[in-house]
């Protein structure tokens, strides 16, 4: 379990999905996709609860950089522990660009009537675009 003492010397990043704890690692810096843009979290960050968007999670520890695609969810930062609750967390290297492009095409072509259906379509588009963004950075 993470050291939650406020005077800890490093951050601790935990990524939990309903199926498994994907990541439980110390970190120097964590960059997260919030619902409206990215947020960076360093040591000593004030407590925060936020809604995640669809995009890239970067965890930097010493010289190592871990990159994940996170599929919405929540983040809670308290006592130098960053807890990320998400439905899906995929390592950037396993993302399939073709599948994301296909999802984007299908979502854009999808007919939507009513608020709920529009919200579903928007979510699918945001997911696909988020995946494409992460996949393109991998190649770039």
């Amino acid at each position: 379990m993470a050291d939650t003492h406020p005077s800890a010397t490093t951050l601790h990043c935990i990524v939990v999905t309903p199926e498994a704890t994907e990541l439980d690692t110390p970190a120097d810096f964590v960059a997260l996709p919030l619902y409206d843009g990215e947020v960076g979290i360093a040591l000593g960050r004030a407590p925060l609860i936020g809604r995640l968007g669809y995009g890239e999670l970067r965890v930097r520890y010493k010289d190592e950089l871990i990159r994940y695609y996170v599929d919405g969810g929540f983040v809670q930062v308290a006592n130098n522990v960053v807890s990320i609750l998400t439905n899906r967390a995929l390592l950037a290297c396993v993302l399939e660009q073709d599948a994301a492009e296909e999802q984007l095409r299908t979502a854009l072509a999808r007919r939507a009537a009513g608020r709920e259906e529009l919200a579903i379509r928007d979510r699918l588009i945001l997911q696909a675009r988020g995946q494409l963004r992460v996949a393109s950075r991998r190649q770039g």
Partner: protein
Amino acid sequence: MANPRVLDKRRRSIRNIRKITRTMELIATARFKKAMDRASAATAYTTRITQLVEDLMTSGMEFSHPLLEQRETVRNATLLVLTANRGLCGGFNGNVQRAGFQRWMELKQTIPTCRLEISGKRGIAAFKFRGITPDVAFTHFEDRPAFDEVDVIATRYLEEYITGHLDRLDLAYTKFHGIAKQQVVIETLLPLGTIGGDSTAPTSPAANQPQAEAGARRNIYEFLPSPESILEEVVPTSFKIKLFKCFLDSAVSEQIARMVAMKSATENAGDLIHRLSMQYNRARQSRITSELMDVIGGVEALS
């Protein structure tokens, strides 16, 4: 006296059956351990989301969400029954089917439009035998239900509930309390009674740690964008994770039930083999004795 050859044949066939049941027991044990690990992983998620909800509540906001509100008139109800695809697991399927059937009859009497959804071939067959065809049937959930698969069903329920096509969702399944106790329960998942997971779920000491720490010192949080907006997302997520946990509980309970059933079948086969061996030995001995008596009688007649 029984024929020793027949007895031996029976004994050999029971030995073969014992081999099969023992193998099934071992397979069920391995699967149970994997299913148990998955259930523990889901508990970690529910514990953290419960923690998040508790911290949200400390912000002093009023809780109100369409999924939490009881509806005055219930016109549409759905009953989902979680059974297994395979048998040889003792009373696991029978118990859920009985409870599900009873609730189905109650719902039919009180609510105008009812839909029945069944997961598992055994449940589908049992309800068909009673003359009830399910509206939706799932057979793709094995011992490793994936969140993505459950998410599809949960999203559909949420859409139906929000658009007014569903007023109540009941779920009949076997709840996993521990290795020694599994219980058939019927829970109403929609409207949601509470958010943030199941308070009665078994949690590991490690999983309890964040709660204990949070209890020791409360943080003042910054909410991005706002507590209301986060709650709007937390409630559907909480429902999805609750439904997923039910599928996981059912999978773990099925493996435990199969493990126990196969263990007792193996033991019974052993007892049967022991009894048959005694009968066989007696039959063989009496045949030898009678042959000896024949030989002795023949010798006496000649002398």
